[in-house]
């Protein structure tokens, strides 16, 4: 074999190797499952509504909830499939606040510095109600240079952006300036502080407070708040909006802002308890659901729960999003009806849930 021929063969072999590697390594973003579970009409609504937001879809599960009944459906998932519910967790933290007020452990106007060692920082004077209604003036997330760098890194890696213990959380709060206190500005840092303050006031930890205050009384046996260490190795994970696999979020000390894992069946129990003022809640749900504060300072908001402006509708709602999951729980309190939609990609399900609530 002469030299030019040998070189051409090497070139052809290298090209084949690149092409074979390219085929093997080809990106495979998920696509919405066509496996229908539960009610076929509701499943059709899910399939028809996924174009309401950009991004990939994999599995979805939903329920149309009434006070004493529910209709379940799913695409590649069912009412017992576990999802991260993300920031809907904040509504649980708000409920724990209302329960703590009811028990006399705290008041809505108690400064968070009474429960956490925030020294003479600006954050110490913020009240628990302000934390829950996002009126504290605290930033959305910690703004220290290492925290911002870690946050950007986690976005890049698709990992949990909140690996911080309570001491770190307190340090983040101490380092934060307050901006436009009294105006609604969504803050994960604020709700995380609230959850840890409630745990401190009850002399326990946040997970235990959640278990004894809400999960156990309502019988939400498939709902949990696992730590990173306790998360099973085969725990369900999801995908980013772009279809990249995302790690589970357990969020450590920031868990009160978004780390609950649950199912549509359990979220249905939760929604029914809210709609019917179930005594197991320990408080009148209106204390968390009803908007409070000035109405000209941003969205209508109660303790964590948002209420649509009258011109947009009547829903009381909270959504959620983690690295690999999206969620939306919307209540029509007048008609005692609700919709929960959970997805295992970060593509928003807000419009999907709202449209199903309006349809029904």
């Amino acid at each position: 074999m002469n030299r030019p021929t040998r070189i051409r063969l090497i070139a052809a072999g290298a090209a084949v190797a690149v092409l074979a590697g390219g085929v093997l390594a080809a990106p495979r973003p998920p696509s919405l499952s066509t496996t229908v579970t539960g009610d076929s009409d509701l499943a059709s609504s899910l399939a028809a509504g996924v174009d309401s937001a950009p991004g990939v879809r994999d599995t979805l599960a939903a329920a149309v909830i009434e006070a004493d009944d529910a209709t379940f459906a799913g695409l590649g998932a069912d009412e017992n499939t576990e999802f991260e519910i993300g920031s809907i967790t904040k509504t649980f933290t708000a409920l724990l606040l209302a329960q703590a007020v009811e028990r006399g452990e705290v008041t809505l106007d108690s400064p968070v510095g009474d429960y956490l060692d925030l020294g003479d920082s600006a954050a110490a004077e913020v009240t628990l109600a302000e934390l829950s209604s996002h009126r504290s003036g605290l930033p959305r997330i910690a703004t220290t240079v290492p925290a911002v760098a870690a946050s950007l890194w986690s976005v890049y890696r698709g990992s949990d952006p909140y690996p911080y213990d309570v001491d770190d959380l307190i340090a983040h709060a101490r380092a934060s300036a307050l901006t436009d206190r009294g105006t609604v500005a969504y803050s994960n840092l604020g709700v995380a502080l609230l959850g840890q303050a409630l745990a401190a006031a009850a002399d326990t930890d946040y997970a235990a407070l959640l278990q004894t205050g809400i999960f156990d009384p309502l019988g939400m046996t498939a709902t949990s708040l696992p730590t990173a260490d306790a998360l099973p190795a085969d725990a369900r994970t999801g995908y980013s909006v772009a279809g990249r696999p995302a790690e589970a979020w357990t969020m450590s000390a920031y868990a009160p802002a978004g780390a609950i894992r649950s199912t549509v069946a359990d979220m249905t129990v939760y929604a029914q308890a809210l709609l019917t003022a179930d005594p197991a809640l320990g408080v009148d749900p209106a204390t968390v659901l009803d908007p409070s504060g000035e109405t000209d300072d941003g969205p209508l908001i109660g303790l964590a729960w948002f209420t649509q402006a009258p011109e947009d509708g009547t829903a009381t709602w909270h959504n959620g999003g983690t690295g690999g999951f999206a969620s939306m729980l919307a209540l029509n309190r007048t008609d005692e009806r609700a919709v929960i939609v959970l997805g295992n990609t970060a593509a928003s399900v807000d419009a999907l849930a709202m449209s199903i609530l309006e349809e029904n």
Partner: protein
Amino acid sequence: MLALIPFLVLVAFVVGFVVAAWSPRIGAARDRLGLVMDGVIAAGLLLAGRMIVDWSTVSVIAWYALVALLAAGVVGAVLRWEKLPVLKDPAKRTRRTWGAGITAAITLGLVAVTNL
């Protein structure tokens, strides 16, 4: 549009490697080290882009097109290899070698953090 930026960066580097491997003049590789580094960067970015690019917006067909371009670049690089000096300017050996090493390390790091 923002979601397309990683993809466009990827296209620029893969096309750049193809040009370096095949172009007779403009953009042509001047030496083997340059050609190898163009290939390493293009392949590395393609592997990183596998995880970074939104392949639901940019069709996966575009991935296969980029792989085909990379393969074409590799063919051109092999065919051109013998005609190129190792280094165009041996006086810059130390600087070029260090530069190539650092670039390769950064590229491999990028592949590792996006894919592992």
